[in-house]
């Protein structure tokens, strides 16, 4: 009786590396790895040779040298005697400021426009279509320099605010001045301030944190926590008894009263801008470059977000609305409880990539002279020190880090709202 046995094991032959599918992928991968490493080695050796012939070497010592240039729009204190590292740090904060501001306004405008494009009012839908097409089909750099030109050329100079019967006056109860040198808004001042805490000593990354701000944030956080506990308690009571206790006045009081008490205790008042000589003093000065960049990036990105929002709402079938209606939900409850949660799943992934685009496009600040990380590290610092390799590679790494952080953060959020399938 013949028994089936395994076929005899083939001995390994060299040609199996190419012809046997079990080994072929291994071969290809090893070759690819070698080719890649060769390429990297080639580039590095070229770089070393070129740098040697230029008499340069890769080192980051220039970061501790004084930058000796000024950054006029900044969040933290900085003087031209500070180091290049401090300048880059200020630039990085400027990038983040314009990116965060831009993302917020772009989202608000984008959602409004996206919903308005679906409006039953023919005129509004058409106007929004014109807006979207106008901004999507013209380069963002053009919008940025255009916004800058509008601000500089068409706004009144501070001189126009002077005199008894000045042609221009401050708006919003004499507190905001819009001039061709920028916008002056009131700043928050505390007459009984708690002072600042300095983090990181005297190093280049030093950071003055206002204790007033921390106190306000802490009180607000506590208020919101209590607010939510009250709401949870009301829900529990409603679930048990069927009657929801009236709590709204209590909730509002919890939110408002502690903050007001704290602000009064700190002696909160607004420092309004005032005309002194040829310019405004006091208040916070938002320069034209920041405003132009902010407006242009927001409007440009909002056009893309509007399309995403419109697509997301259209992607929800009409049956969902009708089913929700047949359950007896009111129209605004249908929107908030049925349509939006489902539309968000469609909207969020492309929204993430638009936030990323906005952050990357903020590097165009260099065109209007807003000193973000590209303008400091990749611009003036690079030109002053002549360290192209270090500056540009570092710049790329920083952007890569920001991009990856945004996509990781938003992907976590996306996971939370994603449909959980069986």
């Amino acid at each position, binding site marked *: 009786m013949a028994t089936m046995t395994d076929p005899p094991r083939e001995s390994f032959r060299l040609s199996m590396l*190419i012809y046997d599918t079990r080994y072929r*992928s291994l071969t*290809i*991968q*090893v070759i*690819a*790895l070698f080719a*890649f490493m060769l390429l990297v080695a080639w*580039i590095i050796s*070229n*770089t070393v*040779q*070129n*740098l040697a*012939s230029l008499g340069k070497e890769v080192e980051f010592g220039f970061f501790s040298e004084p930058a000796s240039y000024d950054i006029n729009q900044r969040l933290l204190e900085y003087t031209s005697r500070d180091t290049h590292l401090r300048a880059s740090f200020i630039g990085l904060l400027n990038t983040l400021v314009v990116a965060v501001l831009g993302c917020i306004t772009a989202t608000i405008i984008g959602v409004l426009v996206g919903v308005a494009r679906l409006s*039953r*009012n*023919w*005129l*509004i839908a058409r*106007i929004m279509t014109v807006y979207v*097409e*106008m901004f*999507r*089909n*013209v*380069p*963002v*750099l*053009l919008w940025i*320099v*255009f916004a800058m*030109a509008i601000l500089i*050329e068409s706004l009144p100079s501070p001189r126009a605010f002077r005199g008894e019967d000045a042609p221009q006056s401050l708006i919003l109860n004499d507190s905001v001045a819009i001039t061709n040198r920028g916008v002056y808004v009131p700043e928050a001042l505390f007459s009984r301030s708690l002072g600042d805490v300095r983090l990181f000593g005297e190093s280049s990354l030093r950071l003055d944190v206002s204790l007033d701000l921390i106190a306000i944030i802490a009180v607000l956080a506590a208020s919101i926590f209590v607010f939510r506990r009250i709401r949870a308690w009301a829900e529990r009571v409603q679930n048990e008894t069927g009657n929801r206790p009236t709590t709204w006045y209590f909730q509002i009081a919890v939110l408002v009263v502690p903050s007001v008490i704290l602000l009064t205790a700190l002696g909160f008042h607004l420092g309004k801008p005032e005309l002194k000589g040829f310019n405004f003093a006091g208040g916070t000065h938002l320069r034209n470059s920041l405003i132009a960049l902010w407006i242009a990036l927001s409007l440009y990105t909002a056009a893309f977000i509007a399309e995403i929002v419109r697509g997301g709402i259209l992607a929800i079938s009409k049956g969902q609305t009708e089913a929700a209606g047949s359950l007896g939900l009111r129209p605004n409850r249908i929107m908030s409880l049925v349509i939006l949660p489902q539309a968000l799943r469609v909207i969020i992934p492309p929204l993430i990539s638009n936030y990323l685009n906005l952050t*990357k*496009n903020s*590097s*165009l600040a*260099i*065109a209007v002279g807003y000193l973000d990380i*590209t303008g400091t590290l*990749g611009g003036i610092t*690079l030109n002053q020190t002549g360290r*192209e*390799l270090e500056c*540009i590679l570092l*710049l*790329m790494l920083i*952007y*890569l880090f920001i*991009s*990856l952080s945004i996509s990781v953060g938003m992907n976590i959020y996306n996971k939370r709202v994603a449909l959980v399938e069986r």
Partner: protein
Amino acid sequence: MSDASFVRTEMLSEQDPPPTSVGVIGWLRANLFSNWWNAILTVLCLAAIWYVLSGLLGWTLRSVWNAGSLNECRDVMIANWGSTHGHACWGVINDRWLQLLFGFYPPELYYRPILAMLLLFAALAPVLFADKVPPKLLYVTAAYPFLMPWLMWGGSIWTPIGVAAGFVVAYLVGRKLGGTASGLVLGILSAVVWWMLWFGLPGQAETFDSGVGRVLVAGLGENLASISPDTAPFWLETVESRKFGGFMLSVLIGVVAIGCSLPLGILLALGRQSNMLIVKAICVGFIEFIRGVPLITLLFVASTLLNIFLPPGTNFDIILRVMIMVTLFAAAYMAEVIRGGLAGLPTGQYEGADSLGLNYWQAQRLIIMPQALKISIPGIVSTFIGIFKDTTLVSIIALLDPLGLSNSIRADTDWNGIYWELFAFIALMFFIACFGMSRYSMYLERKLKTEND
């Protein structure tokens, strides 16, 4: 008793719908004044439109077309309307529009970029409107990548012919060995050998100074010593890259980047889809790196670092370096678009190819890619629109694209201080090009949708 019952014998004629629900009034009621809130919005919108249009149309139409400088413009405005405010000075466009289109390209050679543009449409037609044009046009598509550089930069026709012949050699060798990986590798190697023979070895003087190409020309009846630029057959006057500018430069960078990034993007997409860990890691790393940094940093690399990364002594012009970096940038985005196309194919297509006994490259070439590329054409067009718009960034590294040219026009004393007219012209040109392409892409999407369902 008389019968009081009544039976109607004739039908009542149909009544017209109430006049408020049909015609112009009905449309207005339904679309503009459906309730008081919409009515308020409509009136506000009309007021806003009136405000914007009255300013804009007055500025555009009550304008000066014939003027040699801004001051001349202002004089004409004062003479005609008594003020310089609210009137456009289109004299700058009238004066400089050729420059905005072609940069500093020699005016007597303008026919060459125009011809290259027309040939571009001819070359793209069989791809974009496959069902409406004769398939013979595909020959133009194949020849275009070699013809276009010759037309734009000029020089001898033997350079593009030599390059094209290298591809033919690669194709023939690859075909001889069948569609296998080794055929691919050997094909590429033989093409490289061919190019070395044709143009001479690398580092050995400029192109076309040695090698078979030159000998061949000599064999065609030219004396080796007497080949000068003017006498060589099919010699076009050379134009240096630094004379390129305006919309020509934007289109050129965009087209070259998309054209070159397509094969690169296909390879990257396949690498990202593959099961091979190392290949996948390299491709994902490249794609995510490029997509994570702004284009402007890559342009900085082009302007300062690329020469450091290449062998000592390499020095080619900035436009070529920019093209390389924009190509790499476009390739990463292209790879993602094509990956989307690959993901859109049903698994049955892969299994069908396997069951026919096709190997990987045959399956990709004959089954997968034709379908995947077709469904990714809308994405490719959107990528092109993005790249085309992003070419304005080269003005930051001092190339003369339309935006860079507008700065240099403003630096001229004649036109110092002119903003809106230049911006309006540039924006209009970009709008027309990008809007046209996005409409085409939407048309294509609709067509693909109906075909699949």
